[in-house]
């Protein structure tokens, strides 16, 4: 459904954030994009949503295609209307608006009746959000805010939902609720999901396919089970160290790490 081909992104025409990134998100699947801080994950999502210009970012080369048609260059509004909606990092709710107003704004590109139907769907999915509907969203807990953020994105009736670190700063139990919701959206409604995460364990359990990005480049990709079984992924992302503690003087280990970074 979504395809990035050899994407290169510069900030301020000088700083290269993403280089030669190609990835595919097939319709109806969950694809994970993993990487550490500053690897370029959020930059890729911003490029897809068309909001790079706000931070003086620019797609220098490469293409972004949705179902074979070019997506880059469309306005953020047009991209939402085409069904590509992002849940931004750190929730980014409209803090001074009530929960329901936040959700209604999610349906800004849809008609009034579609919005009303969407509101009912979101409330059915997250009963906690319904209880809090008239509260000012800025005062909700982190987990509730994440639910509102996902609900707000769903109000746009997306075909492809892009989530930017939905587990960030949340308690494990809440994370589980949120990921269950994502999985059921995918299974029951056939929603395509691009999941950006630092939490590799969680993401590789949820997704069918994964890409690992470091310093703006894809260094590894494959089906989730294969990635989970990969030694390097186990060590650097899943936190397994093969039984014993590694010493920093271990040259072989150092070399392997180095390969990851370059």
């Amino acid at each position, binding site marked *: 459904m979504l395809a990035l081909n050899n994407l290169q992104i510069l900030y301020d025409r000088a700083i290269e954030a993403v280089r030669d990134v190609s990835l595919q998100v097939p319709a109806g699947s969950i694809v994970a994009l993993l990487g550490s801080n500053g690897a370029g994950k959020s930059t890729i999502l911003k490029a897809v*949503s*068309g*909001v790079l*210009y*706000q931070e003086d970012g620019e797609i220098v080369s490469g293409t972004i295609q949705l179902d074979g048609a070019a997506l880059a260059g469309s*306005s*953020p*509004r047009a*991209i*939402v*209307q085409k069904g590509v*909606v*992002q849940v*931004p990092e750190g929730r*980014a*709710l*409209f*803090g*001074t*608006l009530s929960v329901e*107003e*936040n959700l*209604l*704004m*999610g349906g*800004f*590109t849809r008609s009034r009746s579609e919005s009303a139907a969407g509101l009912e769907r979101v409330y059915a999915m997250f009963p906690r959000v319904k209880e809090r509907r008239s509260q*000012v969203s*800025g*005062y909700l807990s*982190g987990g509730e805010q994440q639910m509102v953020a996902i609900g*707000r*994105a769903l*109000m*746009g009736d997306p075909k492809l939902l892009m989530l930017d670190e939905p587990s960030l700063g949340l308690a494990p139990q809440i994370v589980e609720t949120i990921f269950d919701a994502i999985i059921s959206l995918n299974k029951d409604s056939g929603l395509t999901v691009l999941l950006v995460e630092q939490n590799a364990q969680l993401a590789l359990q949820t997704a069918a396919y994964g890409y690992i990005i470091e310093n703006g480049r894809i260094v590894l990709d494959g089906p989730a089970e294969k990635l989970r079984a990969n030694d390097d992924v186990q060590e650097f992302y899943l936190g397994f160290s093969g039984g014993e503690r590694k010493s920093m003087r271990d040259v072989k280990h150092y070399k392997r790490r180095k390969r990851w970074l370059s």
Partner: protein
Amino acid sequence: MDFLLLLISTGLVSGAAYGLIAMGFALIFKSTGVVNFAQGELVMLTAYISFTIYSTFELSFFPLMLVTIPISMLIGLVLERVFIRPMLGEPVFAIVMVTVGLAVILRGITIMIWGPDPFNFTAGLSTNVVYLGSIPFYPAQLYLIAALGVMTLLGWAFLRFTRMGIAMRAVAANETAALLVGISVSRIHAVAWMLSAAIASVAGVLFAANYKLAPDLWFQGLKSFPAVILGGMDSVIGSAMAGLIIGVIENLFQGYIGQGLREISGFIVIIIVLMVRPYGLFGSKDIERV
């Protein structure tokens, strides 16, 4: 006692003008983050245009406003398109400087077209004194206070219940998130300028009807600044209330302390407000979760 009542009532009248002008400031600041220094000039320009329409067609007040408001909105839209839209993405300070330049241009154009001499402009309102209790009012004074009430109510309902109004608050709360849900931020900016110009025209016509129509009308824009800051910059309703408060304070200073203090009393209030409540009486503190 009568003296006090008279001070308060005339204070409410000039305060209503401040309130209306401050609402225009707040509306633009809230949704675009720009302090529009040309707001006073917008008030002046729309008042002059209304004057020309009035002297050509001899309309009474309500039909006059019905013609003036759409024209003002059009002017607001054109100004936004021509001067502000190309600056999108530039630092806010640069945009503010553009509005300062715009202010000078509008002032120059107004004097060029209508000349420097003041006009009497009744805006189709009668000049017979009416008494409310023991206090005498000109109809124009009552219209000004009523206009503030109506505009406040309309503004509140717009921001609270309409899609466009909620979207305006959403853009103020988080511009990137607004883009990500498909709100066209540039369109919201244009709407803010149009509505602000509409409010400016109401303020301009009624202010001119109360005092006179002269090229120094733009100065009311600066004089409304204490109200804007007291209201908290981004609170449309708050600015309206703050306008009334500043108007009354100014009159009380003038009546009981001294003539010269009228002009500076508002700015004394600004300094105190900025020290005690930097976000104003009604402005929003950033919501921060701890």
